C-alpha cells in the first residue's frame, strides 16, 4: 500500500492544481479562427496542465526519498509565523486609514513584542523614530508622495 509521505502529499496537491489549471484553460477566450492556428492563447496552458499532471503522477508513484534531518517545527514557532503574517495583513489594511508613520510604528512595536521583546524603551525607540525618519526620508528627501491618513479627513 502507498503511504502518504511529504512528497506524495505535495504530488497530490500539484495534481489537483494542474487539473484545475487545465480545466480553467477552456475559459480563455480565443480570437475568431484561432482554433485553426498552430499556437493560440490556450495552447501553452493545456500543455502545462498535461506536463504538470504527468510530473505530479510521477512524484506520487516514485520511490519516496529518505527525508533529510530537519529540526522539528514547534507549534509556538508556527503560530509566531502566522502571527507575523497576520500583522502584515493588518499593516496593509490600516496603512490607508492610519497613514505611514503610525501604521509602521504600530506594526514594528507589535512585531517586536510578538517575537519576545518586552522592554518598553526598546519597543518604542526601535519603532517610532525609525518610522518617522523613514517617512521623512521618503517624503522630503526622495520626494515620494505618500497619501495622508484617511482618518484625518473623517
Amino acid at each position, binding site marked *: 500500500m502507498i503511504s502518504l509521505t*511529504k*512528497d506524495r*502529499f*505535495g504530488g497530490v496537491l*500539484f495534481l489537483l*492544481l*494542474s487539473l484545475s*489549471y487545465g480545466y*480553467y484553460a477552456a475559459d*480563455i*477566450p*480565443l480570437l475568431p479562427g*484561432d482554433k485553426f492556428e*498552430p*499556437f493560440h*492563447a490556450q*495552447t*501553452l*496552458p493545456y500543455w*502545462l496542465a498535461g*506536463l*504538470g499532471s504527468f*510530473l*505530479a503522477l*510521477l*512524484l506520487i508513484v*516514485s520511490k519516496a*526519498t*529518505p*527525508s*533529510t534531518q530537519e*529540526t522539528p*517545527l*514547534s507549534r509556538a*514557532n*508556527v503560530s*509566531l*509565523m502566522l502571527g*507575523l*503574517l497576520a500583522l*502584515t*495583513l493588518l*499593516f*496593509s*489594511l490600516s*496603512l*490607508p486609514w492610519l497613514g505611514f508613520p503610525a501604521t*509602521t510604528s504600530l*506594526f*514594528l512595536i507589535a*512585531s*517586536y513584542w510578538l*517575537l519576545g*521583546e518586552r522592554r518598553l524603551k*526598546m519597543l518604542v525607540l*526601535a519603532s517610532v523614530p*525609525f518610522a518617522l525618519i523613514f517617512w521623512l526620508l*521618503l517624503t522630503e528627501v*526622495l520626494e*515620494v508622495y505618500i497619501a495622508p491618513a484617511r482618518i484625518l479627513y473623517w
Partner: protein
Amino acid sequence: MLDGMFSGLATALMPFNLLMVVVGCFAGTFIGMLPGLGPISAVALMIPITYTLDPSSGIILMAGVYYGAVFGGSTSSILINAPGCASTLVTTFDGYPLAQKNQAGKALALAAYASFTGGTIGAIILIFTAPALASVSLSFQSADYFALMLLGLTSVAAFSGKGQVIKAMMMTVFGLMIATVGNDVITGAPRYTFGALDLVDGVSFLLLAMATFALAEVMMTIMRGQMHGSEQAMQPVALSSMKLSRDEVKEVAPTIARSSVFGFVVGVLPGAGATIASFLAYGLERNIAPPRLRKMFGKGALRGLAAPESANNAASTGSFVPLLTLGIPGSGTTAIMLGALIAYGIQPGPRLYLDHPDVFWSVIISMYFGNLVLLVLNLPLIPYISRLLAIPPQILNPLIIFFSIIGVYLVSFNTFDIQIMVFITLLAVGLKLLNFPMAPMLLGFILGGMLEKNLSRALVVSDGSFDFLWQRPLTFSIVCITVVILVLPWLLGLVKSRLKATLPAAY
C-alpha cells in the same frame, strides 16, 4: 568592442556608480551574513531601490550586493559556523575549524584573497568569452531561443540535487503557469484573471521575488526557531592576525588558480551555479592533495577553505555569461537580475551587447571593482560589520519583513499587493516545508513569457510542426544537450546503484 569597453569603463567609473558598488558590497555583506538570507534574498531586497536608478547603476548595485552577499555568507560560515547561503556551506568545513583554532583572522583573510582572485580571474575570462558568445548568438532564431530556454529550465531542475529533480521540474512548470496569468502577450486575451482587474497585468515579478525569497526566508527562520539562542552565537569573535605566511601563500596559490578557472566553467553552465562549483572544487582539491594534506581536510585545511571560496566567486561571475549573452539566467540570483533588466525595458541577450554596450560592459567592469571593494574596504571592516549581527533577532527580523513589504508597496502604491504577498508567502512556506525548491519556480516565471513567444513564432514558421527542433544543427545540438542533462541524473543514479550492488565494501 573597444568602444563599448571604454564606454562601459566610463559608466562604471562614474562617482555615483562607484558609490553603488561600495553600497552594494556593504549591504550584500551584511545581508549575506544573516543566517538564512543568501544572495537571492539580498538581491531581491534591492529591487525596489534599483527601480529608482538608471539601468546601469541598478544592475551595478545588484552585482555588488551579489558579491557582497557571497562574501558575507563566508564570514558567518567562518565566524559562527552558520552559512549565510548554500554556496558558502563548504566554507564551514575548514573555515570554522580554523576559527576554533584561534585563526579566524587568517581564515577571513584567506577567504577574501581567494574570493578576490576567483572573482578577478572570472571577470577577466568573462571579458573575452562574453562578447565572443554574444556575437555567435546574434545568428540565433526563435527555435534556438526556445531550445535554449528549455535547456536553461531543464538544467536548473537537473542540478537541483538527489531526489529533487521531479520536484524542481514541477516548480518550473508552476512558475510557467504563474507566468500565464494576465493578458496573453500575443493575442491580449485575458488568462486566469477571474475578472480581477489587479490580475490583468499578471503577477508582479517584484512581488513574487520578495514574497518567495525575502519574506518566506525570514518566516522559515522564525519557524525553525533559528532566531532563538542565536544571539549568543552572533557575538563578534575576537579576530587574530590576518597575515598569511609566505609558505601558506605558496601552498594555496595553485589551489586558488585551479578552483577559479574550474568555478567559472561550472558557473557558466545554466543551473549549476556557485553551490555546485564550491562542492566540486572542494572535492577536486581533496582528491589531488598529497595524503599528508588530505588528512587535514575538514580540520582546518587552508586548501579546503581556499578552493570553495575562489570557486564560488568565479562561478558567480560565470553565471553572468548566459545572462548577458543569451538572456538566460544561470542561477536564481541572476534570474532576479534578468527580471529587473526586463522591468527596465532592457532585453538581455545578444542584442544587449549591441544595443546597450554601456550596461553590458559597465556590469562586467564593475564586477572587478566589486571584488576590489570587498578586499580593500570590507576585509578590514569585517570585525565592525560583524558587530551588526549582534542586533537582537527580535528587532532585526521585523525590520527585514518591513523592508520587504514596503519595497513592494512603494513601487505600486497598492495595498492589495501586500495582501497577495502574504498569500504567496504562505504558499511558499508550505512548499518549502514540503521540500520544493523555489529558484526553478522563479526561473520558470521569468522565462515563461519569452518561452511562449519564441515557441509560438517557431511553430508558426514551421506551420505547426515540431521539426524546427531538429532542422537546424544548432537547435538540434541544444536539444540533444537538454536531453542528456535530463537523463544524466537518472543514468548516474542507475550506475551508482549497480556499483553499490556489486561493490558494497567500497561504499
